[in-house]
């Protein structure tokens, strides 16, 4: 199997500071890491490779320093990586990013699966995975929480539309949905799918020694009008802080006498939400 995992380098956000005036994140001196949700995609890809053989290729688009994310993915167990980097990509929104990554994936060719993290922790749009699927005209399953079964015909030629397939479970708000998708397909995965491994020293050694030549729109054929800021239909007009609309509810059972009615109230509530 050939599996591709598009990943993104994001700022380490566990100690994030916000600029009070602009409402944007202070990025100075902040460590860069692989988007935490992409780690689940990498893990899912590596597990399938371990089971079925083949290779996993991590790709990312970003500044030259995003090379570190590729090396980290290789240290975890990816076989190779491609860094898309060039001035022409600067300022890309999710549409332009999806376009560029889809061109890169097409350039790799002969892939069976694409695994993406659900969303990146810096932008939180969850659009790039589905965007790539759309550009490549691939079947798409989002919020995948389980890969149940992969079927690859022994003499796979991809001539029959349903020749190869993957069965997955999607995590929805009110339950699960099971889908079978013909391959090649794109999946975006949620945390429930697995526990990402840590990079090993031997992985780090391999990652240290691998050559990573950045590629740009010269090496990979792309419509330059679709790239960067000029290729991006999104304009950031204003940044607002969201209001938290969800709220917890506390049923008071602190005093004796209230406890029985509190239990009743809780049962009623759970029933109304179809949780009982």
């Amino acid at each position, binding site marked *: 199997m050939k599996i591709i995992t598009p990943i993104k380098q994001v700022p380490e956000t566990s100690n994030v500071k916000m600029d009070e005036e602009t409402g944007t994140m202070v990025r100075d001196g902040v*460590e860069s890491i692989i988007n935490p949700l992409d780690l689940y995609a990498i893990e899912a890809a590596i597990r399938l490779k371990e089971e079925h053989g083949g290779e996993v290729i991590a790709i990312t688009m970003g500044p030259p320093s995003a090379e570190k994310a590729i090396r980290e993915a290789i240290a975890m167990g990816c076989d190779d990586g491609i860094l898309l980097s060039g001035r022409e990509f600067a300022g890309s929104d999710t549409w332009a990013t999806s376009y560029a990554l889809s061109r890169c994936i097409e350039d790799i060719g002969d892939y069976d699966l694409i695994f993406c993290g659900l969303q990146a922790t810096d932008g939180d749009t969850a659009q790039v995975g589905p965007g790539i699927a759309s550009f490549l005209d691939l079947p798409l399953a989002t919020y995948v929480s389980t890969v149940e079964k992969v079927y690859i015909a022994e003499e796979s030629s991809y001539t029959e539309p349903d020749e190869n397939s993957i069965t997955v479970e999607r995590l929805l708000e009110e339950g699960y949905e099971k889908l079978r998708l013909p391959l090649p397909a794109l999946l975006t995965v949620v945390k429930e799918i697995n*526990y990402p491994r840590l*990079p*090993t*020293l031997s992985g*780090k*050694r391999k990652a*240290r020694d691998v050559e990573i030549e950045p590629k740009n729109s010269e090496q990979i054929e792309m419509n330059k009008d679709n790239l960067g800021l000029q290729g991006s239909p999104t304009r950031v007009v204003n940044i607002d802080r969201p209001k938290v609309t969800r709220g917890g509810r506390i049923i008071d059972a602190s005093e004796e006498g209230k406890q029985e009615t509190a239990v009743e109230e809780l049962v009623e509530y759970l029933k109304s939400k179809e949780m009982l």
Partner: protein
Amino acid sequence: MKYNPVTEEILVELKEIVGGKNVLTDRDKIEAYSHDETPKEKYAKMPEVVVKPSSTAEVQSIVKLANRELIPVTPRGAGSGLSGGAIPDYGGIVLSVENMDKVIEYDFDNMMMVLQGGVITNNVQEDLAEEGLFFAGYPMSLESCFIGGNIAENAGGGKAVKYGVTGRYVMGMEVVLPTGEVMRLGGKRVKDVTGYDLKRLLIGSEGTLGIVTEATIKLLPKPTKEVALLVLFEDAETAIATVPKIMTETGIIPTGIEFMDRRSVQASCEYLNEHLPYQNCGAMLLIEVDGAEEEQVENDYFKIGEVCEKNGAQEVYVADNHTTRERVWDVRRNIAEAFMVISPEQSLEDIVVPIASIPDLIPELDRLSEKYDIQIPCYGHAGDGNLHATLVKNPEHSMEKWYQIEDECLKEMYEVTYRLGGTISGEHGIGSKRKKYFPEAVSAVELELMKKIKKIFDPNNIMNPGKIFDLE
């Protein structure tokens, strides 16, 4: 020693000193001051009153009053101690420094800072980081403990291999003596051999010689890169045998080398729902390196990792960003917590032996575990020979039997420790928990001298009485 009770008149006087709201007598409120992190059922004692001064002058007035009226005073930091040091064994006054939480001065030209005894040590790190500095005296209960408590216990922690313990960074202090006098020791001088080093005597004195109200601490340039290696071994012997080689074969001093045996690893990983392949591993080492240059740190961890591989490591995991580092440190930090779930009755020990003797210690612990039919998980700071072998009660034993086993097993464990050139506490202190075993740990001459020192500092024996040793 006969002490006087805290009477209504005394309470009035205390309220005059610190104000009514800083004098607690309500049972519900003072219960929290009756214990530290040692098992409550066995060691907790209720104070008669808790007093929360805000200044050195207030501390002074309280201590003078207590000395005059012969009321015991137990100084208290955050109560995260592990030897009973902050427990009022004779009731009386618990003097909590929690309101003394001000930073008095940042002196970046001298790379030092001056703070009150109740400052949460970890809270200053954030301010310091902006200046590219940090405080390297780094105990494990990092999020809650106070600098005053750190000094009183001379606390250690997970970075002692490279950075040493709290005492190394204490340049000066202001201390209220048991007689109520205020004394300043040291200062901002890097060198000072003017007379006896009384400051050193106060560091680690477990609140028996005075109350640290103010401290001047040395800061270091903050390392910009830290990498932790989590190394899996087939068994404890192989892991422990690797520890001395990490330093001797690479010439690199890591910030810390932590050891976890099979039981510790399994309890913690299950507790955390960690999915590392820990099932087949008999022990882990957690090794951390730091530095100012990413490249240098990378070279260091490769060298250390390769020594581990050469010495039979099953796998070497590399955690080189905040998220993964926290993940591997969590395994180490949650061991004690994890065992609380398995059996809350336990004795957390703090033995320390020369580093090269650790391989001889491990089989002895296994032997004791078998002999007394209890679990003795062992983890801790292998890089400085300081291991938290923990006696965990067998759930099938009665409490009576457990206390008997605890006592006998501890005695035997300590004997083994002495034989290997070690002693009974590396960083938690004697307090009341190990008092009974203390006379075996020092010579008769040394014990007598310590008692004389205590009597000179505290003629009425009112300052944290009943800790380390009994005077009578």
